[in-house]
């Protein structure tokens, strides 16, 4: 695909999402789909973060902790300090990035299963901390978070107050899709630039990368920080949409799901996490019909999938790119 073709496809995709889908929903009256699709968009942002850590050769099962942290940062700033939601979005991301730098410094040199273990415990510890620390209001969580307020720059209203909108769901949907597009665009650019090559060199041979002057620790921490940033903003948006935040909002199971999203979508492709999130989320949702058997069937399908396709979904779709 040439660059022009890629740009055209991207625009077409966005058009479908931003225009086609709302038309479809208003025609069929399924406005509950807004929440579903918004969730998919946000979860794919968070999963993209996990994908980036895969890209530097680490298995990250701790993203739930950063989503949780991002959500709480936004919730606390909005409810207790009256900060505009739109400002809390980048703040949440940056604070998560900062936290990940602190955590990353000792653990990023670990590899494989060891690194995965540490990040897994991070997910659980985040939940326990949210339960224990007073500022997060413990198990009761933070509720009744007001809808995002107006965003004005120089007196011009860029984004109206969500409370004034007739259909805030549509507004959240549009915001999330745009955010997702932005994130994936940035990720795509990152991966195809020199930085992406450097990460690849890290992944393949750390010693050789060192010998050509790549500062391995720095790159790893940078990637991890960006990854957590994505987790943070995803979590913050979730807080705004669900208007609540509980210690159980993001936990170990979610971290595992983010990893699953990446894996299923294919670890070699930037759009992998988006596809994986979509499939898994709708898969899980569809299974809701089965009631108590939902988890059983879901996990069985996953097990079968692992047995049959140990290398992810997209690896079968684009065989010509499957070189490794």
């Amino acid at each position, binding site marked *: 695909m040439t660059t022009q073709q890629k740009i055209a496809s991207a625009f077409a995709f966005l058009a479908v999402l931003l225009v086609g889908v709302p038309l479809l929903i208003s025609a069929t009256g399924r406005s509950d789909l807004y929440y579903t699709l918004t969730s998919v968009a946000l979860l794919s942002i968070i999963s993209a973060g996990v994908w980036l850590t*895969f890209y530097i050769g680490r*298995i990250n*099962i701790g993203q739930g902790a950063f989503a949780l942290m991002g959500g709480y940062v936004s919730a606390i700033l909005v409810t207790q300090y009256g900060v505009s939601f739109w400002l809390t979005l980048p703040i949440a991301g940056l604070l998560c990035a900062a936290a990940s730098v602190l*955590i990353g*410094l*000792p*653990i990023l*040199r*670990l*590899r*494989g*299963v*060891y*690194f*995965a*273990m*540490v990040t*897994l*415990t*991070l997910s*659980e*510890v985040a939940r*326990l*901390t949210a*339960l*224990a*620390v*007073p500022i997060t209001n*413990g198990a009761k969580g933070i509720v009744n978070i007001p809808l995002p307020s107006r965003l004005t720059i120089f007196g011009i209203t860029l984004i109206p107050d969500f409370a004034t909108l007739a259909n805030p769901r549509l507004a959240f949907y549009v915001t999330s899709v745009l955010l997702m597009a932005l994130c994936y665009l940035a990720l795509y650019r990152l991966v195809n630039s020199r930085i992406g090559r450097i990460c690849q060199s890290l992944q393949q041979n750390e010693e050789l990368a060192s010998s050509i002057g790549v500062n391995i620790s720095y790159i790893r921490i940078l990637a991890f920080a960006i990854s957590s940033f994505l987790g943070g903003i995803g979590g913050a948006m979730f807080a705004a949409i669900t208007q609540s935040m509980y210690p159980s909002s993001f936990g*170990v*199971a979610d971290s*595992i799901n983010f*990893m*699953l999203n990446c*894996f299923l979508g294919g*670890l070699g492709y930037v759009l992998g996490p988006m596809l994986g999130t979509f499939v898994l989320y709708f898969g899980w949702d569809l299974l809701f019909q089965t009631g*108590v*058997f939902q*988890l*059983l069937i*879901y*996990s*069985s399908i*996953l*097990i079968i999938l*692992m*047995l049959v396709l*140990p*290398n992810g979904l997209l690896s079968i779709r684009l065989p010509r790119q499957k070189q490794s």
Partner: protein
Amino acid sequence: MEQVIANGLYLGAQYALIALGLTLIFALMNVLNFAHGQMYVLGGFVTYTVYGQLGLPFPVAVLCSGVTLAAVGAIIEKFLFGPVIKRSAREESTMLLAAAIAFFIDAIILLLFGEKQRGVPKIINGVFISDIIIMPYDRIAVGVVAAAMIAAFVLYMQYSRPGRAMRALAQDRVAAQLMGVNVDRYSMIGFALGAMLAGLVGGLLVSITGVNSGIGGPISIKAFLMVMIGGAGVVGGAIAGGFILGMMESVGLTLLRNFGDVTYLVIFVLLMIFLSIRPNGLMGKPWG
């Protein structure tokens, strides 16, 4: 003070058993058994059924837990982990499989036993009271049994033929194969053994703390913490990790009681600092 130590020891013995199971599986197959906590819960529920519901003697119930989990472990290894490990070059696949299995066992437990907390009648009534410590008899009994099991396990691994085969396998897979160790068979035995240990602890502890379907995940995490502290893949490390975590929990619960449940946050921060200095845990095989 002595009370704290006594509690720590008691907890430590249980935790060490859990960690031993996990580390054995890790040493043999380089697989992190995410479902370890769920196996513990399953063991608890089996004992609950056999001892609590059917009224059979407690030791029989615990034995049933062990056997059930050994069977479950063997099946999982032979039909799930074994094939996937052979087919896939990526570590993520086995990890995701482990996660999926954990979900699966969680689902089964929910379906069979529901969400409620279950308990069983005390196995020994009464409390040991002295000037320095107070400890219910059943805890002492369970602690002693756990310690005995740890000793038995260590001896088994050290001196028995399967034990030696498994240790060879853990050290160097290829060399072990060349020496005639049936890798497939011993992987299965090892996994079954690891699962059995988890089941046994579950069975023992259901008599004291009860069991419910939701604690599987957190227990897996605790097991990982122990293995990280003590070092993955090493028997001594698992035991050390188990006792250290037990002790830290005991200390934390007593000292930090006023600050809310920050015990685990503190443990985690300490772990971060510890891992910066010693990334492989106390005795671990170099990894990474």
